[in-house]
């Protein structure tokens, strides 16, 4: 480090403005050598902007940053020559092979030719990429691409590694391997700073900085941050979930509610605590107990503690009968040996499954396991190679116009028109579903209120936050009151609070009779679903509710969904037992 600085990163009142708005402001941050620091915070909190400023690829509009003892503006080239920086998304060259991508990084970073073969072997072995040396980067799974990107940033053994959402869109198995590599690298004494929306990743940090609207609103060890939510989290197991909503009205101390199938977690303002009147109202529904805060609870409390506006819980529009689907099918989905081939590759392999009407069914699986292809088959967007499927009482096949009117589909990338306003997008989708004008007007008003988008109708979609776009995409897929709703990674990259709201809405749709099929990488979200289907290499290796999936495994039942998921994949890989959960 130059100048004998004792900190690897030192930011003083650093800020960055885009036009009139400050993406990051008044950030003071010190990171010592060997520390691992995480940035958490809602969408648009400024995590990426701050990382880019630290990587010296974005100049601060105010204040200054020193990284590795160099000024990020005047000595930017000294910083970029030394650090590793892994941006969000996939940023390697997809036409180059695994080896070529790594070799390019090494040559640019002047890794001595004598050391490169050894480092290449070690890194690619750790990443599990040795069998794919000559595969084009674009043909790898998402998890592998991220691991390779990490390799290209480790090849010069940087003293500081900056990572922007390294686990985003990566399946749990790959995410585990990614972290194993980081832990290993960390032992060399390097400093790691990363942004994340995974709370389990946040818990791995020495120190966390919680960002909200461009400011660091809290800093400390995960334990210290948890302490700030101490006494603010209560869990109850109500017999009647509907009663909870009534009990929570007129309770200003409530900051957030997480709905889980087995419990409801209520976060209150830690300064106010749980008021006697609210406690009494809740106790009428079931026993109320204080719960040790998880990182997600901390997120809710910290986010809200700083929130000037009232928390915008999804509003309750009058006439909730609108939530009910137009057509009530006898069976949500039923498939028989559904198969889809792409050339010699089986994307979906002999999948037979049944989803009851009104059920929330989650498809879990690694990148490339076939979840998206299966959904596209069920929506009739892709013809099956063999097998059959019935969705909402309609046989999926050529010319199934009736099917289109009974299903809603929200794709991974939210197929909205970014240059139109919220209202214009809704109008377009209403006309695409051929809703009569009056009905369309009512449906739009209802969808806007239900998804909490009221007041945003005139805003351009491109300027909405990720969470708002997610809810708009949902609103668009709900206009025609579909019987079966397909949600493909609806919560990817959305902050925990927005995810809670989203799931609560999905829960209410299901309660009103809508069948929901959802894919997700956030395994803890499986808890919001009635039943799970685990997919691996195109096959449905298990399906059932959480307790029965747990019970079907021999030995000690796994504690978390992630462990459960990994145990089933392990089982599928070793070929012990074909399926569980009684579905196949």
């Amino acid at each position, binding site marked *: 480090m130059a100048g004998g600085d004792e900190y690897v990163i030192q930011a003083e009142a650093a800020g960055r403005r885009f036009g009139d708005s400050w993406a990051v402001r008044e950030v003071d941050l010190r990171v010592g050598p060997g520390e691992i620091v995480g940035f958490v915070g809602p969408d648009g909190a400024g995590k990426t902007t701050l990382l880019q400023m630290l*990587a010296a690829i974005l100049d601060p509009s105010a204040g200054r940053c020193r990284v590795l003892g160099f000024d990020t503006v005047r000595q930017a080239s000294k910083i*970029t*020559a030394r650090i*590793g920086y892994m941006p969000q998304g996939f940023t390697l060259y997809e*036409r180059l092979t695994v080896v*070529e991508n790594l070799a390019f990084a090494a040559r640019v970073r002047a890794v001595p030719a004598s050391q490169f073969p050894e480092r290449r072997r070690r890194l690619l072995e750790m990443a599990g990429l040795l069998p794919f040396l000559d595969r084009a980067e674009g043909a790898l799974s998402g998890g592998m691409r991220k691991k390779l990107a990490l390799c290209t940033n480790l090849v010069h053994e940087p003293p500081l590694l900056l990572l922007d959402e390294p686990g985003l869109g990566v399946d749990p198995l790959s995410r585990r391997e990614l972290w194993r590599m980081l832990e290993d690298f960390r032992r060399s004494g390097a400093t790691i700073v990363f942004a994340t929306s995974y709370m389990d990743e946040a818990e791995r940090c020495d120190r966390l900085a919680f960002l909200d609207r461009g400011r660091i609103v809290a800093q400390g060890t995960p334990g210290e941050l948890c302490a700030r939510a101490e006494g603010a989290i209560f869990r109850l197991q109500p017999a009647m979930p509907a009663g909870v909503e009534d009990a929570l009205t007129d309770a200003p101390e409530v900051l957030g509610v997480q709905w889980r199938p087995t419990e409801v977690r209520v976060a209150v303002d830690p300064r106010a605590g749980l008021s006697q009147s609210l406690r009494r109202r809740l106790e009428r529904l079931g026993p109320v107990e204080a719960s040790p805060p998880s990182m997600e609870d901390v997120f809710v409390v910290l986010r809200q503690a700083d929130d000037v506006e009232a928390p915008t819980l999804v509003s309750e529009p009058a006439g909730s009968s609108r939530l009910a689907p137009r057509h009530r099918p006898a069976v949500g989905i039923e498939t028989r040996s559904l198969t889809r081939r792409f050339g010699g590759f089986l994307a979906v392999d002999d999948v037979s499954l049944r989803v009851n009407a009104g059920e929330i069914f989650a498809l879990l699986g690694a990148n490339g396991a076939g979840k998206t292809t299966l959904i596209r088959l069920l929506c009739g967007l892709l013809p099956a190679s063999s097998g059959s499927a019935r969705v909402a009482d309609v046989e999926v096949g050529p010319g199934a116009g009736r099917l289109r009117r009974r299903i809603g589909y929200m794709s991974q990338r939210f197929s909205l028109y970014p240059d139109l306003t919220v209202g214009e997008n809704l109008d377009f989708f209403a006309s695409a579903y051929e809703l009569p004008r009056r009905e369309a007007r009512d449906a739009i008003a209802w969808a806007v209120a239900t998804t909490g988008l009221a007041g945003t109708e005139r805003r351009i979609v491109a300027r909405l936050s990720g969470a708002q776009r997610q809810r708009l995409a949902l609103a668009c897929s709900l206009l025609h009151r579909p019987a079966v709703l397909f949600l493909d990674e609806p919560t990817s990259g959305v902050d925990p609070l927005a995810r809670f709201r989203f799931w609560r809405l999905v829960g209410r749709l299901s309660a009103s009779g809508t069948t929901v099929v959802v894919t997700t990488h956030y395994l803890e979200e499986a808890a919001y679903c009635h039943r799970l289907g685990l997919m691996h290499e195109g096959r449905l290796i298990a399906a059932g509710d959480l307790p029965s999936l747990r019970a079907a495994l021999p030995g000690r039942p796994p504690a978390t969904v992630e462990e459960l998921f990994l145990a089933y994949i392990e089982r599928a890989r070793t070929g012990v037992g074909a399926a569980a959960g009684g579905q196949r």
Partner: protein
Amino acid sequence: MKPARIAAVVAKETKEIARDPVTVAVALLMPLVMLFLFGYAISLDVENVAMGVLDQDRSPASRRLVDRFVGSGYFRLAADYATTHEVEDGLQRSAVELVLVVPPGFQRTIAQGGTAPVQVLVDGTYSATANLVAAYAQAIVSDFAGDSAPRVRVETRVWYNPSLRSVTYVVPGLFGVILMAFPPLLTALAIAREKETGSIQQIFASPLTPAEFLAGKLVPYGLIAFAQIAMVIAVGFLWFGVPLRGNLLLLAAAGLVYVFCTVGIGLLVSTITSSQLVAMLLALIVTLMPSFLFSGFLFPIFTMPYLLQLYTRVFPTRYFVDLSRGIVLKGAALPELWPSVALLLAYTVVVFALAAWRFRKKVA
């Protein structure tokens, strides 16, 4: 500038291009398509013009006059009209481009040694050919009249393009336009694509300097552009039969300097734009359009207003069109041409420096 790092970028870029055969094929085919289209389509020659006749004399003399037209090889008899109504209708429908009206009493007047009026109606909607058609018609009629009373004859010699074939003069100009149109397009997309996929961020956060990165991009695209030159020149000479009076090596060398200049313009465009679509449109606007209008390729510079003439000096195509025509048609050599070559070199250096200066390693 570290050569090792430039080499790394060159190697990476070359592999990427090589694995995109469609782009390479388009890059190599498009210039040929353009050369063929324009080589054949842009013809200022008058040939096979559809002509109508309203012969009100119906005499041997009037038939001889019509035969002169058809026999000249420039006109073909497309319609024989009986009334002036039909003539109007024919021109209106563009059935004919020229109508020869021979009034009654034509033969008698000639026989009496008088001056017989003949009317030639020309469709003037496309003025460039209309002028030529009118001039040719005039010449044929004068020739016809002159037979009876020979007078002074003017002998005109056209230098450099004695047959006045327009291909001979269009194709060397096309070299300049084509090499301005395609190489920058490809290059502009190359950096904009990295911006779109986000891979540019990895470049920003690396030791590569802007000049190293751009130089690494310049080399492979410069080579593709050189392949384009070779193809276009070969087709120009072998297929279109353009005569080469000067030195082929000199032409190739000037072409090499010129493409590095045009590729540099592509790089400059892509440093400014953030998406491939904008890069493509901007590249077309700054390269293709001015190279058509202001290079002297089709529209002679000396007939332009003075201010526009100054403006043409901003575009390198003008110098290369001069070079190309000079070498191909006049057989000119370096002693006459060095100022243009020097200007192109200077232009290349300036464009590259500007691109390197504009290329900031910052995301915003």
